[in-house]
């Protein structure tokens, strides 16, 4: 309710007007992101193939996230082993620990936590880097030199994400299971044969493909949103210059995180 508008007709009209504005803004933003993604994605396959740039981006997105993903995976697995043990031991079925750890890692925690960590580590810097290139007019310079900035900046990052995300997710899963083994078997004394056999029995191919589908979708989502936020820093309503870059980085991280979690729910309900 708008307090200053007393006349009923006027405030209702204003509300409908406002609703329409918001809707048009959201829809056109979504459309812009979709076009941005399709354009950037198809440019991956344009010749000459930008092998070097993709390798550089894999180095930045994938290799440099290697340690942090290993660390997070290890501790996630260890805490799952601990928590799972204390829940399962009440029912005397601590043999199920392996299955509990492996399934929750492969189906859910692996893809999501990996995506969240990469957003924090690489996504923010992608948005900031492209954003600064935009406000210091380097992107315009690229355009002037007849280099397609989408092809030069965005496509290698999308390609590198598509390659890095599933690999890092697999690493996360394997190290997480190792972490579960550390606490479950070495610390709390679950039989190691039972632990691993339960994993082999309960994990099926569908769980693993589901996890990889998730991580691929997250890769497309995160790289597109982060590049988009940086690329259009100059069009933000909030501010221009350094303020614009800081806003773009913040919204890249926030929007990517929210999207990853929302899409994770939707995908899970489809994949189940």
């Amino acid at each position: 309710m708008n307090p200053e508008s007393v006349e009923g007709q006027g405030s209702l009209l204003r509300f409908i007007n406002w609703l329409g504005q918001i809707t048009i803004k959201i829809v056109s933003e979504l459309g812009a992101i979709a076009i941005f993604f399709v354009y950037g994605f198809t440019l991956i396959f344009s010749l000459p193939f930008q092998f070097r740039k993709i390798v550089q981006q894999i180095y930045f997105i994938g290799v440099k996230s290697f340690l942090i993903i290993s660390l997070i995976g290890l501790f996630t697995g260890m805490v799952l082993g601990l928590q799972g043990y204390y829940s399962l031991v009440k029912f005397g079925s601590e043999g199920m620990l392996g299955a509990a750890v492996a399934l929750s890692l492969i189906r859910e925690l692996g893809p999501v936590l990996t995506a969240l960590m990469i957003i924090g580590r690489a996504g923010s810097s992608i948005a900031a880097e492209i954003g600064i290139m935009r406000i210091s007019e380097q992107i315009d310079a690229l355009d002037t030199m007849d280099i397609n900035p989408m092809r030069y900046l965005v496509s290698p990052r999308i390609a590198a994400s598509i390659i890095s995300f599933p690999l890092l997710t697999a690493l996360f899963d394997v190290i997480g299971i190792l972490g579960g083994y550390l606490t479950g078997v070495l610390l709390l004394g679950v039989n190691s044969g039972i632990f691993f056999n339960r994993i082999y029995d309960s994990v099926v191919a569908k769980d693993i493909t589901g996890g990889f589908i998730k991580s691929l979708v997250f890769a497309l989502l995160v790289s597109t949103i982060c590049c988009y936020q940086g690329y259009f820093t100059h069009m933000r309503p909030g501010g221009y210059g350094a303020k614009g870059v800081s806003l773009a980085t913040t919204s890249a991280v926030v929007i990517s995180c929210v999207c990853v979690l929302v899409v994770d729910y939707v995908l899970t309900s489809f994949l189940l």
Partner: protein
Amino acid sequence: MKKYSQETIVGIFVLIGLLCVAYLTIKLGKMELLGGNYYHISAAFDNVGGLKPDSSVQMAGVEIGRVQSIKLDTENYMAVVRMKIKKNVPIQEDAIASIKTSGLIGDKYVSIQPGGSDELLGEGGVITDTESAVDIESLISKYVFGSVKK
């Protein structure tokens, strides 16, 4: 220390990642690279209560295969269970297939008891002798309401 080029480091990263993927898909996902090591048989049950695709098929407690699909035969309302069995395990045509539970509330599995016939089941063979799942709930309710001894 020797400085490695970016390509080498990326190569090592991709290699480690692919090793993890391979471990997950082949060891845990039981992906069959060739897929030719199985033959398929089917059996019709009155009630498969709780059996799922990919449940194990066992003989003498040893896993010899997996359930592939469960369909309802609408002609005589039986559940038709299709199983894949390892090639090196021969099954006689008078073998008995029954649905068992591991533990009291554990997973359901198909147990196959070998028969005495000389005829072996081949690809697409059908086990005619079946025993359905024991419905523990109705057994318990019978016990509770005292009709088991009658």
